[in-house]
């Protein structure tokens, strides 16, 4: 092989290889590129409508092509919000002891990032950016429109409980799925991805 070709090729291989190792190490530690390019958070609005209680039926997030049915979930034995059965990987679960989307307080909606062999309804949740719109259709035939404020990742054992579950200052929405490092066992993934969003408008379906 001629030297003037061989040396650059060797350098290229070294650089590409180091890049591969870097990404691999990142994956092993739950690092994600989406988090790097997400941009700053978007402040919630000063004015917003307020609605009464009504069950959410469907959720739509155009930016990450989510269109799914919602059913009610409660708490499981270990005091975490229950999740939809793995068989319903394309459905989301609304924590039905909490506020409805549109009421004051945080409406909690959980969904799978994946099952044992396939991606789940919220597998692209991590790619959402501040400012993205989330539409939720309620049983009273109203569509509530939420805007993403921030997308954050927390260890499952160190969730900021107050910020996620106890902010009754406005009608809010929390979308929760799994993320971070895979540890397996009971826990599955080590972290939760939480999308914080606020109601900006409501309209008739």
């Amino acid at each position, binding site marked *: 092989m001629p030297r003037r070709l061989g040396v650059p090729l060797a350098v290229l291989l070294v650089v*590409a*290889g180091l890049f591969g190792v870097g990404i*691999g*190490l990142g994956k092993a530690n739950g690092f994600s590129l989406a988090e790097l390019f997400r941009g700053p958070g978007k402040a919630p609005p000063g*004015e*917003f409508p307020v609605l009464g209680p009504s069950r959410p039926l469907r959720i739509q997030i155009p930016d990450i092509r989510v269109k799914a049915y919602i059913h009610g979930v409660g708490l499981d034995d270990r005091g975490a919000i229950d999740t939809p059965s793995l068989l319903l990987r394309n459905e989301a679960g609304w924590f039905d002891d909490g*506020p409805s989307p549109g009421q004051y307080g945080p409406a909690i909606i959980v969904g799978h990032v994946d099952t044992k062999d396939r991606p789940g309804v919220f597998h692209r949740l991590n790619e959402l950016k501040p400012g993205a719109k989330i539409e939720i259709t309620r049983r009273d035939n109203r569509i509530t429109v939420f805007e993403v404020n921030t997308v954050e990742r927390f260890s499952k054992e160190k969730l900021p409980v107050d910020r996620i579950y*106890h902010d009754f200052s406005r009608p809010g929405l929390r979308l929760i799925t799994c993320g971070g490092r*895979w540890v397996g066992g009971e826990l599955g993934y080590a972290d939760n991805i939480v999308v914080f969003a606020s109601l900006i408008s409501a309209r008739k379906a």
Partner: protein
Amino acid sequence: MKVRFGSFFMFRGGVGERMPGSPGFGGGGYRFGGIMRSALRVAAGVTALVVAALTAPSPAHAEGVFVEVNPSTIQAGFQVAIRASCGDALNNAKVHSEAFGTVTVEPVNSYLIAAATVPEGKKAGGYNVKLTCPSRQTATTTLWVVNHDSPEHGPNTGGGALADDGATLIGGGAAVVGLGLGLLVLMRRRGRSPLTPA
């Protein structure tokens, strides 16, 4: 007792909810000349007065008598702010609800204001909140109480299909680096040797 964000001061900012009985006028939009306009206004005013006198409003929905709670949905154990008016805001009035009992609202900045705490064990549901003015006029609103144990852990929302421990990338990357380094060494050796043509 836990006090939450949404309380008192949110009020003043005029957050979303239009309160019943708050002056929502200001629209209008007709533009006439000076005298004509004031004449019309007077006429409209008189008509309104007559209509008001004739229809004799029921006490429950009297003009300017209202009560509201903020936030209108609250977790049991937390506090809400109450704002009310009896048309004027000169005297104390009573606000009663199954959710928090009876509290006295007091005049502050042209509204009647108080705070009330929903006890920790209160059952979830909608509760009537009733204002009774000294004039015996009343107004009502609804306070929604939610009551649940706070989830302390995150939900298990994954099965592992997308999990990637990076082993392939680390291994593959390392192999490629090795290959590159090997090639470099080879090139250097060749370059030194006078026998091999460059």
